Each structure stands twice: as C-alpha cells, then as structure tokens.
C-alpha cells in the first residue's frame, strides 16, 4: 500500500491538522515509511498468538457505581476560550 498526496491530505483533515500543500509530499513519504515498517512486521507469523494487551499480568481495574466527582463547573470551564452561562461557547455548529 502506498500513500499518495490526496490520502495524506485526507488523513490530515480527519485529524484536524492543518498541512500546507507543499508539506504534503514529505508527509506522504513519512506515512509510507511507517507503513513499510508495518508491512515488515506483517511478515511475522502470529497465527494462534494472542495479542498482548499488557506487559504486566494485571486485569482491568473497575470502580464502584458511586458519584465521587463533578460539581466543579468553573474548573471544567476555566480553560475554555469562551464560556457563557455555564456552557462552553463555540462557533455555531448546525446539522
């Protein structure tokens, strides 16, 4: 698989990262290098090998269904570029 300029531009757009047109060839090259490495990894036969999900033998931690957090709208909003009447205010998005 090879990444062309159009695909590179699409990936950038999906990630909401602005990439100027003249930077796209370099980006596509980088993607291709990464994919090349992945393809190399794909050569390893992993049939019947369970994917490793953790390097230590531990299980997913769980919490009890108890309300222990929240009630701090001012802290939640404190980094917002714009907040009004307790809400985050963002440029209009309409479906």
């Amino acid at each position, binding site marked *: 698989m090879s990444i062309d300029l159009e695909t590179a531009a699409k990936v950038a757009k999906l990630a909401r990262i602005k990439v100027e047109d003249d930077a796209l060839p370099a980006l596509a090259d980088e993607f291709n290098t990464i994919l090349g490495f992945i393809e190399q990894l794909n050569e390893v036969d992993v049939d019947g090998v369970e994917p490793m999900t953790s390097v230590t033998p531990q299980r997913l931690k769980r919490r009890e*269904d108890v309300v222990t957090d929240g009630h701090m709208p001012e802290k939640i909003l404190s980094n917002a570029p714009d907040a009004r009447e307790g809400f*985050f205010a*963002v440029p209009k998005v309409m479906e």
Partner: protein
Amino acid sequence: MLDLTYETPKPKVIAGAKHDWELVIGMEVHAQVASNAKLFSGASTRFGAEPNSNVAFVDAAMPGMLPVINDFCVAQAVRTGLGLKAEINLWSAFDRKNYFYPDLPQGYQISQLYHPIVGEGEILVDMAPGVARKVRIERIHLEQDAGKSIHDMDPAMSFVDLNRTGVALMEIVSRPDIRGPEEAAAYVTKLRQILRYLGTCDGNMQNGNLRADVNISICRPGDYEKYQETQDFSHLGTRCEIKNMNSMRFIQQAIEYEARRQIAIVEAGGEVVQETRLYDPEKGETRSMRSKEEAHDYRYFPDPDLLPLEIEQAWVDDIAASLPELPDEKKARFVTEMGLSEYDAGVLTAEVANADYFEQVAEGRDGKMAANWVINELFGRLKKDDKDITDSPVSPGQLGGIIDLIAKGDISGKIAKDLFEIVYTEGGDPARIVEDRGMKQVTDTGAIEAAVDQIIADNPAQVEKAKVNPKLAGWFVGQVMKATGGKANPKAVNDIVQAKLGL
C-alpha cells in the same frame, strides 16, 4: 418456561407506481444505562443538573486523565444481554471511534466495535394477540454518550454542556428482521418494556434516554425470503440510516416517508445512495446529513487506555439468577395459569408495576374478575386523572375488598362501581363503607316482593302490556332496581317480577 404460540405477521407492502415493494428494517437502539455514575468517571448521571456540573476531568478529556470502568454499568449490560437471551462474551474490549465534534472533548468515543460484551440474542415483538415477530439481536456493546449542544441560545454560537458526556450507553443492534413501520415501533416498545423490567434503562424517550437509528431498504416481494435463506444482503436494496429518533410516532412517520422516497428513486430508474439521514418532524421528511459522510471514516483502533474487559462466568450466573420474570413469561403465565385473554395479559404486563398491582389484587381471587376491575375500572379512572399506577389512591387490598364483596353477593356490580368511586375519592375500607352507608344488596325476598307489588299496583297499564309482550318485564325490573336504590339482587328481582306477572 411457558410459551404462547404465535403467527408471524405479514410484511407491509407499499404499492409503487410500477409494482409492489416491501420494507426491510434494522435498528440500532441507544439505551442509557441506569446507573449513578458515568461509564468511566465518578461524575453523576443525573438529568437536569446545572450545565457542566456533572463533569469530571476524565469526561472533559483533560490531559493525563485515565478512564476507570464502572463495574455496575458492565453488570447492567450483562443483565440486558441475559434478558434478551443473548450470549455473554466473557472477554470483550474497548475501541476508539474517532471524530471531531464540540460536544466530544476526547475527539473519540470509547466503544466496542470488534469485541462487544453481548452477542446474539432475540426479541419477540408482539403485534396483536397471537401475532408476533421474532427479531434477532446481533450484538450489544457498551459505549460513551456525547455531550449536548444547544444551538438556539445565541445567533452565532453553539453552547455545549458536557453533563451527558461519558454516560454509559448500550447500543443494541438488531438484524434486518423488521418488516414495517408498525413493527419498528412495536420493536422499540418491546425492547423498552424488557429494559424497564430488567431495570437497566429507564426508557425515558423524552429525555433521550432511549433513542433509535433506523436502517431502511426496500425490496421486491420474494427477495427478503431469499435473503433470510442465504443471509446474503445482495438480495436487499441499498439502505439508508435515519439517525437519532426518540418518539414512536416519528419512527413510523420517518420509515413511511423514507420507504416512499426510495421507491420513487428506484422506479424512476435511479439508485439509492447509502447515506445517513435526519428526520424533520415539522416537514415530515428525511434529509441527507452530508456533513456526516466524510466523518464516517472513524479510524477505529483498540483503546490503549483500557485493558480488555474480562468477566467471570460465576458473576454472569449470579446476575442470571437475579433476573426478574420477564414480560413474555409473565404474560404466558397470566394466560395459562390465571385464565386471562392474551389481550388482557398484554395490557397488564406492559409495565411491571401494573402487573405487580394486578397480582396482588388477584391473589386468592378470580383472575379474570381481578383483571376486569384493574383494567376497566382502575386504569380507566387513573387515565382520567392522568395518574400512574404508583399514584393510585386505591390500594390492591382495597380493590380486592370490593371484589370480595361482589363475590360474596353483598353488593351488585352496579353498586360496586359506586363503591369504587367512593374508595377512589374518599378512601376507606370497602366493607365498612358498604355497612355504614347501607349499600348492601337486598336479597331479602320479602322486601323485594313488597317493592314489586308496589310497582305492579301503580302501573296497571304496563301490566296489561307486559302480558302481551313479555319483554316488558325488563321495565319492571328496572323500576324495582330504581326503587331499591340499585341494592336489590337483580336475579332475585327478575325471578319475582316474572312470577308476579304470571309470565
């Protein structure tokens, strides 16, 4: 377990300009898990709180914050799976579904694409007594809800409230086994009923706690059967998905509209484009959500913040042992053991609170009579006052007491209705009210005879007519009932009137 027999309903057929068409519908229902705290944070799930007050730093996606799963939400998903007779996956995992929207601070939703917690199950969708459709469930997975955007508070800005962000949802995905708009609404109704019995979702559609995405395609009669035989989707048309509907009425209207739209396209020689659409209830039409199309590239990958979710069979067994009697079983028991009609059993089991109330009334009494009183008198009266069974001024004990008085012959059916109204509005013990207010049925034949004699003496002309036309005896019975304030035993009155008139 008891099972009622049923027939499969006929699919809805829509006549196009050229020929007939059938619908094929699959649904994805998002049901908010009933829990105190969110799926991955300790913030509250309470509806209607001040904006952004039920938000933890995890929900706001502050850097460095890590999700920790709520054990109870997992149990609720398992419970739901068991209630839908589904397989429970002891090993499941979470994935990130990536997209950008202001009410999704993480930039991804944590969901379960590849390894859902619940696998295949089924729901029996009741259409009418003796008619039901078995709809297969493909899967149920756990995922996070997004926040809420408000667009009408400012002309240039959207306002975002993250209270809902991270609340646990169960996405319940059906196979395309639903064959018409009514079936789709009945499917949601039945699913909602089961969830409420299980206590895993409150089913409040108005608050958006239960909402449905509907996938619709059309096919020619006969094609659907080919699909069912082979499970090959190529026999079906291209589907469109209508997003986010939270009313049974809108679901039906949207399906109806969408089917006709697709039929018109295909009959004009065009092709249906697979896309996401929105239903506009004001215009009564669906329209394309073009903006969603590109964002559909969700770039799912396993969430590196969360280890796989492993649960024990013993834990699942404990949950299974705690399941309540579910609607189908309860209904079947009411029919087979208590002698109710399937219709009445269906009405009584619609809400578990109604069924519980009925069972308390029926305890040690005639089931049919109890059902009649609960459905016709109590439900009718509550509906008039817009009240729920939980606010009923008449307790099951009081209603049972009224029924006992009828069964003993102390009061007539007509007086019983008056008594019910008194108990409903004033309260009190039915037997005592009957005693105190002299409502007891007169079975003393002497008193009834005296009343009959009086009416006969007062109405010689009617007596003559009745001798020619015996049907007029009914008029005398009515007069006697009136004279005794409805307290005379109607059968005794009838016998005495017949005898005295020499009929």
